[in-house]
């Protein structure tokens, strides 16, 4: 998947909404992260023109977008194709299997990365469905977009 450059200022409010929605709706995520909730994770969808930085501090989690040329200081980086990262967070793909097949790269603080993976994996249902409902009048298009991404499942790996 190749994407056109997107002005990051358009993406940031969406990410902020996602962060606050996860904080209010999935508090168990932060319990499972323990002290790793204070760390910064870069999530790098390698086929998109920006990366995400996640600081999952329970009181005020922050999710922001950055250019690769302007990476924030971070503890761990998890990189893979957008669809693989989407499927892993959606609970449809196994992170270890993606690592074995070299479709997932993890660098930096591996303990923090493992804790994040396990914390996300303990979320029943889909975190994307949760955040999809956070966009008021845009919730329906968001749900359609999520469904569209799920329909791609498997195609990118076949």
């Amino acid at each position, binding site marked *: 998947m190749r994407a056109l450059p997107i002005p990051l200022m358009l993406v940031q409010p969406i990410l902020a909404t996602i962060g606050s929605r996860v904080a209010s709706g999935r508090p168990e995520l932060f319990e499972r*992260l323990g002290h790793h909730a204070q760390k910064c994770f870069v999530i790098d969808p390698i086929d998109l023109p920006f990366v995400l930085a996640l600081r999952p501090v329970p009181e005020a989690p922050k999710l922001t977008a950055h250019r690769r040329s302007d990476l924030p200081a971070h503890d761990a980086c998890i990189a893979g194709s957008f669809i693989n990262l989407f499927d892993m967070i959606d609970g449809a793909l196994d992170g270890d*299997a993606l690592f074995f097949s070299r479709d997932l790269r993890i660098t930096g603080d591996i303990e923090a990365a*493992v804790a994040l993976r396990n914390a996300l994996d*303990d979320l029943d249902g889909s975190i994307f469905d949760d955040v999809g409902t956070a966009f008021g009048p845009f919730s329906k298009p968001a749900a359609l977009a999520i469904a569209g991404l799920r329909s791609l499942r498997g195609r990118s790996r076949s």
Partner: protein
Amino acid sequence: MTTTPSTFTRPELICPAGTPAGLRAAIEAGADAVYCGLQNATNARNFPGLNFSVKELTEAVAYANARNAKVLLAINTFPPAGKFDLWKDAIDTAARLGLHAVIVADIGVAAYAARTYPELRVHLSVQAGASSPEAIRYYCEEFGVKRVVLPRILTVTEIADIHRQIPCEIETFIFGNIGMMAEGRCSLTNYITGISTNMDGVCSPAADVRYEETADGTLTTRLGGVMIDRFGCNESAGYPTICKGRYTCAGKSEPYYAFEEPLTLNLSSLLPDLMRAGVTALKIEGRQRSRAYVKAVVSAYRKAVDDIMAGREVALDSLIALTEGSKESQGAFRSKTWR
């Protein structure tokens, strides 16, 4: 593969759960029983972000009971001197919450469970490394062990032979880590990191793991600063464990898997043989894996066991995408000369 169901007793499918969501995924996929651990050193998957709090375990037992599934608690590490209370607390918790059984490795823990809670079912963990009828009978006689999880070093023929000589049930691994080291005795992680797999419950602690990937796609894995392996850009990777590293050895011109290769045990084609050998429970490894793994593997084996019991042809879904190193093996179960 055709089968003769009348000769089989229906085996239990024992499935892993690293988190409450994993437990629910396992039961929904058809697990007869799920094994899990507490968030401390009392179990051999003491990994960051993994395992159950007491509250989560309480809810998990209720969830499983409502669906006729069993929950087993792995208390399968060895208490260091002066720290036995943590293991006692784990046994107390299992008894108080009404878990179906505890899976123990240490004789002190087994004795505490047997004497304090005579009604609590005790299974002998693979970590105990009991592989002879004599050793297994000792555990049965001294601690009332009801089931032994056999080390993954025995052929099916040997399992059948053991079955005829012991008074307890047999559980064998059918999928996951190949576990070819002397189980419960491995000190490789301890040697490198100072942290014990068998007492701290962590093999290759993530805090000591580093991955380095160069621009050409070469991946180097290190544990505690020691290089374990280097994978070319088109090579599948394995877990960063010392036992699955490549090393230069006498008589080998290239770095060599001196202990074992990164691959996954898959005994799908041996299921009827295992059932015929008297195996009561079939175990899937992988509490550290995701609910996606649990769902896929448990579903595939649920169908396979049900097909065998119904006398149908078994066609297990391919699980190669979930295997370590993208390779699978029947290990020692088929032959001791598998390597």
